[in-house]
């Protein structure tokens, strides 16, 4: 594995939470992009966490963000110098009803994408031990 991925693993271990570790496990093993939801007050959280940021309940369930989640493209750009998904790859903010705004790589080009267009999520592999998500035009 290249140094970038070795250090990414170390950094995730060092800065990770129980929720982020479970989030990455679900992406990699279950091939599912998930948020967390409070079973007491229904508040959704992303990035996920094991308590409710609205009512502090620790009764949390994992909910999948899927093609049925009605995601749309809120804003998008690219970056000339990034750690991943550098130009011409696109980085966006995606709006998902019941979840809100989340940052995500987006499949497509700066010329073709449009604010407001429908998107659906997919799981992508960074390397054999780590996966991430991106959104693709629906």
């Amino acid at each position: 594995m290249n140094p970038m991925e070795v250090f990414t693993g170390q950094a995730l271990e060092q800065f990770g939470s129980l929720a982020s570790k479970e989030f990455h496990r679900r992406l990699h093993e279950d091939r599912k992009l998930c948020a967390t939801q409070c079973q007491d007050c229904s508040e959704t959280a992303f990035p996920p966490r094991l308590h409710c940021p609205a009512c502090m309940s620790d009764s949390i369930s994992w909910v999948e963000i899927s093609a049925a989640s009605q995601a749309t493209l809120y804003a998008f750009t690219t970056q000339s110098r990034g750690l991943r998904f550098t130009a011409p790859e696109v980085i966006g903010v995606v709006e998902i009803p019941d979840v809100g705004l989340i940052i995500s790589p987006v499949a497509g080009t700066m010329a073709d994408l449009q604010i407001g267009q429908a998107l659906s999520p997919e799981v992508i592999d960074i390397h054999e031990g780590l996966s991430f998500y991106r959104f693709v035009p629906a």
Partner: protein
Amino acid sequence: MHELAISGVGSIPVRRDLEAPLLDACVQVAREAITDAGLGLAEVDGLFVTPARMSGDPWLMFVANLAEYLGVKTKGLQCVENGGASALLTLRAAMDAVAMGRCRHALVIASDTRPMLDTNHFESFVRNVVFTATSLYGPVYAIAGLGTPIPIYAMSHQRYMHEYGVSEAEIAMSSVRLREHAAMHPEAQFRDIITVDDVLTSKKLSPPIRLLQAASISAGACAVVVSRADETTADKRPRVELTGYGEHHHESHFVPRQGSITTFESVKVAGQEALAQAGRTPQDIDVAEVYGVFGATELILYEDLGFCEKGHGAQFLADGRSTWGGDIVINPTGGRMSFGHPAGATPLYEVVEVVRQLRGDAPGKQVDGASVGLVHAEHGMMNGSVVCVLEARGG
């Protein structure tokens, strides 16, 4: 609670790198601020600083190192960090200490050096950027591979154009105007006059943001002394009092899950709190320094602080209302895009500039008759903001 004044200020020019080692640069600005306050080192009884570097290797107990090197005995010794807001939060720590009677004259020093990334050693370079990004964006968003936050601001810029029908050229004018201001300021890093065409043909960083619409990564250091207002030395020049303070942090970090990326709750709430405490309205402000790190961000701040209507920032600027001869002079230093941006020190440089303006001590760039000033700083993408109102009294 004691009334507060900024009794002394000191600064060195913002440049690509510090000319002297960090400890020596801090001593230089500290000496200038203490002397400007009419004090001696023995009268300073608090030292409050920003971290030695905003990124890069940690410097453990920097504030204790600095206190020893300066030779100052204190009743308050503290280092405060929260990104771009650090220097104003450090100022608040000093304000609290003086207001509560713990300290009489608290010295605040803010500094930043460019991160010295070891590009000659590939592995340590990669480790540094990966660990910095993971700590900054958290263990979920880290994998999206953001380096600097420029793409996040770029999406705010794109949405601003989309929601308010403002063109790229209109936003580019903010860079041009701020460069006109910087051209008059000897401490500014970027002073060559530019045109809208220069801005729109400069290197694309994250569309729509181009190089001349982005704050630089710079080095600098500055200092102020916070004193009880009734203990500042008698002087012919006006005394600059801290009359309003506001601070508000939204629960989000970079992108609010629920909310807008073209208007910022923290800016509005902190601004309103500070103005209300001072008994002022935005229209009372003669001179302001705001933390506009990118072109559209600059204009959004004019709107959210109440200097003009929402969506009208570009027109307000184009009509000359934010410069000499207009309603208010905003960012007489040249702002973050032209003054240069040592993030750890930037907000205290804003204070230093407004204090000099309110004393009538800004030769060649004086805002005539300035008596009420405002400074703003933020962290994340405006997820948290600090606003101070300063006013000239007497003199």
